[in-house]
């Protein structure tokens, strides 16, 4: 047996033994295990599952074991993911530190920073927020204005960040701040880590059209941040930020798998809400045809992801291919949401109402919430700009 097959067997056995049955069902929002000083578990099983995965380092499977990670190769990680998917295992930990900051620290952090932060991330002890966008700096991120003034042993931070995911629940935030305003926009930006308990940090939730408030605006009012919390060197934040964006694909994939886990089957829903004729065709030929469009896109996206995995594995990556994922994936989700809503008919118009089921309400809320997908983390327009320039070589 090849080493990878051996690993597969071991992983499978371990998961079967250690993943509680209750953690093998699609996860609902309230039962996600988010990192944090005050982390709470929806059930004892969730706690057990998290602790077992954490102790194995499999909350961060490929990170070095010296920082508490699992030390797996990327091929082993893929096998682990497949095995987890096979059993429908829920993710053991949710955190922006895990998905975004950690990989960037591994490349740009100094040893002290790695020692300080990585194992806490793996162990889910700290919940991280991201402080990038500002009210006047969205797609044009580099025009950010939050200042960090060099005071010798510390920096004094003033300004505001928007779209900080659940900053009201976060323990720390990694942020881009302006440390030098004299050069071009992309220069003079630093990547900085800020303890949310620092004096002068405050957050206000932003109510979304889905009725949720997952994001905050975060304000910094004369916040003191120790000098050693700059990552990757003073005025070098843009380089770190770019590194971090590389891991966005991974994040998106994770988010997609989250979405997939909560997923409604279009065909099942349509069969239930619209019905089929004697020959087994859906009664509504218009919706039937659009389901075909959607399934063909969604399944093709899975194949595209799979193809990309094989490309990575064989080190023959078409440089343009990874750039397509966010654009295609977010569109596909929204296309499906619209279809789900329409299939529900007037049951797709509920707003926290008893006359509709939680499942129906969930579809409506997701429909509204997911409008953010083509905007957050680089709008679709920015994605297309990038593809045109980097993948297709069209002039700026």
């Amino acid at each position, binding site marked *: 047996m090849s080493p990878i097959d051996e690993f597969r067997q071991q992983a499978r056995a371990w998961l079967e033994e250690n993943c509680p049955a209750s953690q093998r069902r699609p996860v609902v929002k309230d039962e996600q295990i988010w990192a944090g000083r005050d982390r709470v578990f929806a059930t004892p099983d969730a706690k057990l599952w998290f602790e077992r995965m954490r102790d194995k380092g499999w909350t961060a499977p490929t990170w070095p074991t010296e920082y508490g990670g699992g030390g797996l190769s990327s091929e082993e990680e893929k096998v682990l993911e497949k095995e987890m998917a096979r059993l429908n295992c829920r993710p053991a930990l949710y955190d922006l530190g895990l998905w975004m900051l950690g990989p960037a620290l591994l490349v740009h952090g100094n040893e002290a920073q790695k020692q300080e932060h990585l194992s806490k991330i793996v162990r889910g002890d700290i919940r991280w927020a991201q402080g990038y966008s500002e009210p006047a700096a*969205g797609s044009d991120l580099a025009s950010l204005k939050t200042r960090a003034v060099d005071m010798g042993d510390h920096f004094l931070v003033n300004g505001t960040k928007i779209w900080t995911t659940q900053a009201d629940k976060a323990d720390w935030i990694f942020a881009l701040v302006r440390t030098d305003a004299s050069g071009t926009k992309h220069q003079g930006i630093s990547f900085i880590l800020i303890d949310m308990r620092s004096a002068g940090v405050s957050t206000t939730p932003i*109510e979304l059209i889905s009725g949720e408030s997952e994001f905050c605006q975060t304000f910094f009012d004369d916040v003191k941040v120790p000098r050693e919390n700059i990552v990757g060197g003073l005025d070098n934040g843009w380089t770190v930020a770019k590194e971090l964006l590389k891991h966005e694909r991974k994040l998106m994939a994770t988010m997609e798998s989250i979405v997939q886990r909560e997923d409604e089957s279009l065909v099942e829903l349509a069969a239930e809400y619209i019905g089929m004729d004697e020959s087994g065709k859906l009664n509504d030929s218009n919706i039937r045809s659009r389901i075909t469009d959607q399934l063909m896109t969604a399944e093709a996206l899975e194949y595209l992801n799979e193809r990309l995995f094989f490309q990575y594995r064989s080190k023959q990556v078409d440089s343009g291919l990874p750039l397509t994922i966010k654009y295609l994936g977010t569109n596909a989700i929204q296309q499906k949401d*619209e279809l789900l809503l329409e299939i529900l008919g007037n049951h797709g118009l509920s707003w926290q109402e008893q006359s509709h089921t939680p499942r129906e309400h969930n579809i*409506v809320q997701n429909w*509204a919430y997911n409008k953010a997908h083509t905007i957050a983390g680089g709008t*679709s327009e920015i994605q297309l700009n990038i593809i045109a320039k980097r993948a297709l070589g069209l002039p700026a």
Partner: protein
Amino acid sequence: MVLNEEQRLLHSTIRDFLNQRAPVAALRELRDNRNPQGFDSDLWNELIELGVSSIVLNEDNGGLGFGWMGLGAVMEEIGRHLTATPMLSSIVIGAALIEAADDHHSTDLLPDVVAGTRNLAFACDEGLRYNPGATAAALENGLLQGEKTFVINGPGATDFLVLARTAADSKGTDGLSLILVPRDAAGVTVNRIHSVDGHSFAQIKFDQVAVDNQQIIGVPDRAWDTVAPILDRATLALAAEMLGGARELLERTLAYLNDREQFDVKIGSFQALQHRCAQLFCQLELAQSVVYKGLSAIDQGQQDVAKLASHAKVLAIDCYQKMSNEAVQMHGGMGITDEVDIGLFLKRSRVCNQMLGDSSFHRERFAKLCGY
């Protein structure tokens, strides 16, 4: 297919009034206060004073002669301001049904409806989607039994116009009658549905409700002959409202694109956004032309506007849906916050999609009417 002098005056009067008296903030207030009847009676009475409830009545019944093009202008403004009113249910459908009955009901009820002291809701849908041919509610031995859902203006109505089966063994839209049921009749239970757009609908149970012949509006067993053309007109009115919403969204989006700067320029200078806006404008004017064609056809006394109504509804659905998605997208992060109004239009568009028949329903009907 253009507004005349009087209709333009009506249009600007309503627009100024709603701008002043009921901007979109009025809908927010209604939503956040969970107003029990689903609309603001003071606002509705003021609109009635401006004449909106008599626009399309016959002159005998106090009609104002603005015609359906005039009504379309009013609906457009209602769509632009997301105004919650009983206009569609009580006037465009309700009053028209009463008037069409052309009997004692017209004399007895119509003045009250037009004055707003009576408020009608047309109770038609029973399942997940609009499908009058599948009506199961039935009147037998003087007792009405059945359940209606997604009743527009249901929570605020004083009386329901219930579509129910009265001919035994009838099928489809044959054998239906229209029955006037007071809200407070014994056996009537009204459950309010707070819909996603902040408007109100109702789910209504009729449990052994006693009905006498006087309550039947129009010809018994033959209601569909009267109801169908009125629903076609209402569908065109609804399409006019939807395009009002779409037009408002386009204007707000253009204003945002002309204001917001990124990369040191107005984002409205990006050609990709310009082309998308231009395409949306073309789509809007195309749909608008069908709505005007339909409204003019009614004004010109053409009886058969069924095909135009379905045509208009489908294009209005496509247009409003696309426009609202694009408006959210082009407003970027702000577009997905509840603070900005865009999301309210987005939600309203999806509710309008279902009212009086969704896209599949009307595409199917259009194809059938065209013979393929």
